């Protein structure tokens, strides 16, 4: 045990140091020379002599190579100096600290929204299970609508709450009225996700035997409800923490849509303007918030579990696998809708400005035309193909990386935790700062985080395979560790891991669209979905269809993503195709047979 703990701790430490170092050497990675713009910002009169430029380079530590640069940056951090802006030439610290205050206020409001949403979603199943009814995991349709990506929900809320109804401020940060919509945009998806996780967990917990025992012993629904929550929540704290960490990524998109002067918008602006010191400092603050959420989750889990955590005797809830036909109804319908749209629009030209600007939908133009007179049906259809094609490539990469990394469960702890906790938007900002914006960069950013769930799954599943009796006996038969991995663990885990990865395809497509929406992915005139939405937003009052077409496509994809992820969280058990005739006992990974 001590040695394993050492590997895990080292893995975490190395990963965190690696991320900090990566942020530190960002100016070197991007290979840009900021000295001229800094010189201009400081004084218009000074001539750009080689000496003057060299002095600025030396002052910024740019000539010292990556290590010197890192040392310069770190020593500045230690003194509380967050760096000097490459644009204004002034220190970036004060502005970012103010932005941090705004973002923290917004996140707190969003957290409140999330908690209320989650509580509303959990109440029916809790009520049902506490009264002894065996509930089914459900409410997927309602939950799917709350689990829209933030950038999409923010656009819809802006449209409805500020433009059409005029109840709230559409832009800026002027008072309580400007908090409502952004907090809803960030809090509803997070709350929807947490609510679904807890509701599903409660339903599964409700089938455990102790519940029946408690009921027979006369426990009141209130007592049982508290016990059910206490039993269910610890297993979910890590996932809930990931959702909360995701708020930092949501903040970037939401602050951008509502023009809120928060940290997310500051970071995005810094990335667009190539003001790398501001970006570095902003990233550090965002990651600090993420780490704070992660730490809070760990403390909560420890408090809920008490000594059970340290003795390693935490019961793991058994998985149920009700792959009923109706579970496929919602994703099937969404997928069919998308296929119809693609089939209808693929033959049309997405780039030609052949129609009147912002033409209304008609028989010839079912979705209307955009601000440049391009056919929106064609753009949505081609966008689907481009986005899904890129997403499929990302899925393939994440599957390979996830399986390879997942086979080193202890050494991969740190990278998996960090990649799981890093929202794709934040990684997208980093990648865009280092490599410039492109669809390939967006794909790289999404791939950089999307492998982690696969790796975590492979690590858990292969650990389960290694505990099976037909595998524990192998060393005695002369089968070495490498052969155990490649001949037993991988073939058993791979089909389920591949299924898991494929089910994540719509989610990855949405992440790509989010980056496109924020200007971190595909560049115009590409018909990318996020980009379509961003291009339509300015015309939302005159031509709502310019927004409705991409919104409709994205909502359909979200419903597909959410309903599929519901299926992937209840995988079939990763054993091989076992034909069990009646009369023999086949040990399943969940139920160790014949305890001697």
């Amino acid at each position, binding site marked *: *045990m001590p040695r394993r703990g050492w590997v895990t701790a080292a893995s975490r430490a190395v990963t965190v140091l690696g991320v900090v170092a990566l942020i530190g050497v960002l100016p070197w990675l991007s290979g840009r020379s900021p000295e001229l713009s800094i010189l201009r910002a400081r004084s218009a009169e000074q001539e750009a002599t080689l000496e003057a430029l060299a002095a600025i380079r030396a002052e910024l530590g740019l000539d010292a190579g990556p290590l010197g640069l890192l040392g310069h940056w770190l020593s500045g951090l230690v003194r509380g100096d967050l760096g000097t802006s490459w644009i204004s030439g002034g220190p970036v610290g004060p502005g970012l600290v103010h932005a941090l205050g705004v973002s923290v206020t917004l996140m707190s409001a969003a957290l409140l929204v999330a908690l209320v949403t989650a509580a509303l979603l959990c109440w029916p199943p809790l009520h049902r299970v506490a009264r002894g009814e065996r509930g089914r995991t459900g409410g997927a349709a309602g939950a799917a609508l709350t689990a829209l990506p933030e950038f999409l929900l923010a656009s819809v809320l802006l449209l409805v709450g500020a433009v059409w109804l005029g109840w709230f401020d559409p832009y800026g940060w002027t008072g309580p009225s400007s908090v409502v919509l952004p907090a809803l945009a960030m809090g509803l998806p997070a709350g929807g996700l947490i609510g679904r996780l807890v509701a599903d967990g409660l339903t599964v917990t409700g089938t455990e035997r102790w519940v029946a025992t408690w009921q027979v012993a006369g426990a009141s629904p209130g007592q049982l409800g508290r016990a059910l929550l206490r039993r269910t929540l610890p297993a979910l704290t890590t996932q809930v923490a990931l959702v909360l960490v995701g708020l930092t990524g949501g903040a970037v998109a939401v602050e951008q849509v509502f023009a809120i002067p928060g940290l997310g918008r500051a970071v995005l602006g810094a990335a667009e303007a190539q003001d790398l010191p501001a970006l570095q400092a902003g990233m550090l603050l965002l990651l600090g918030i993420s780490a704070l959420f992660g730490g809070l989750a760990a403390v909560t889990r420890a408090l809920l579990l008490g000594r059970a955590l340290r003795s390693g005797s935490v019961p793991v809830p058994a998985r149920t696998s009700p792959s009923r036909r109706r579970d496929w109804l919602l994703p099937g319908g969404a997928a069919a809708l998308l296929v119809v749209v693609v089939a209808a629009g693929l033959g049309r030209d997405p780039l030609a400005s052949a129609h009147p600007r912002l033409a209304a939908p008609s028989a010839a133009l079912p979705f209307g035309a955009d601000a440049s007179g391009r056919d929106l049906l064609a753009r949505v259809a081609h966008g689907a193909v481009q986005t899904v094609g890129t997403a499929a490539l990302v899925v393939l990469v994440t599957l390979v990386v996830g399986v390879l990394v997942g086979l080193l469960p202890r050494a991969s702890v740190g990278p998996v935790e960090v990649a799981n906790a890093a929202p794709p938007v934040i990684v997208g900002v980093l990648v865009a700062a280092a490599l410039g914006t492109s669809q390939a960069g967006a794909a790289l950013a999404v791939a950089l985080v999307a492998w982690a769930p696969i790796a975590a799954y492979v690590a858990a599943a292969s650990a389960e395979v290694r505990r099976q009796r037909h595998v524990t006996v192998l*060393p005695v038969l002369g*089968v070495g560790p490498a*052969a155990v991995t490649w001949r037993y663990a991988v073939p058993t885990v791979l089909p389920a891991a591949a299924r898991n990865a494929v089910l994540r395809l719509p989610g990855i497509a949405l992440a790509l669209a989010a980056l496109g929406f924020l200007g971190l992915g595909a560049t115009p005139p590409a018909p990318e979905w996020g980009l379509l939405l961003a291009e339509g937003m300015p015309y939302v009052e005159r031509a709502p269809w310019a927004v409705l077409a991409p919104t409709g496509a994205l909502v359909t994809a979200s419903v597909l993503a959410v309903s599929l992820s519901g299926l992937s969280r209840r995988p079939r058990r990763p054993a091989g195709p076992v034909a069990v005739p009646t009369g023999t006992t086949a040990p399943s990974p969940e139920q160790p047979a014949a305890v001697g």
Partner: protein
Amino acid sequence: MLSAAGIEHDYALHRRRPWGARDVAAALQGVDLQVAVGERVGLVGTSGSGKSTLLRCLLGLERPDRGTVTLAGRTVRPGSTASLRWYRRLVQYVPQDPAGSLDPRSTVRELVSVPLRHLHVPGDHAAAVTTALTRVGLDPELAGRRPGELSGGQAQRVALARALAPGPVLLLADEPVSGLDLPVRDQVVQVLADLSAREGLGLLLVSHDLAVVARLCDRTVVLADGLVVEEGPTADLLTRPAHPRTRELLAAVPALPA
């Protein structure tokens, strides 16, 4: 001859507090054990007496804190797969719940040839598989089936055939019949008895089931709290137990076998 001398083994428990010292539980406190060529020895004891830990040490799966395991004078200790091949060819293992130890995706032929391939046993493997199946009284026609298509008794015999395939001189069996229903248990015990009587195969049988030990073993060793408290010919030990822990074990058996 397999010999264990002065085996001690501790387990580090989880810390009570994150900053506290680890508690240590002693599983074995200086155990000596010999199994001569062709001898059949029973190792009995209650749960937690250290039987399974001792077996893991004897199999070269766990390194004892002190003491050595030797086979014919050659030391056996956990190491690379290659460094233990010689030992695994000579000493094989029948796990608890043998049927559960069969990979459900493999055919019987593949299962039985696993040790032949991985232990680099020379000769014709196909013929060796057939021989091994015949030795445990199975029809070689079953070689194409998978574990799911076998009866309980057949699966137990396949597991036994797999252990016999590399031609070991000694079998270490960990509760090989616990958890089986009686007819199947008797079949497996009969196969083990026949093998040792006909072919002089040695046997170290770990069990808490004294009826099985009485039927199969010449000599019995009683393990309690990590120590050998009594050993001797099985018949004497069962009729005139000297140590209180042996008497406790016997008292737990409803009726002694004839």
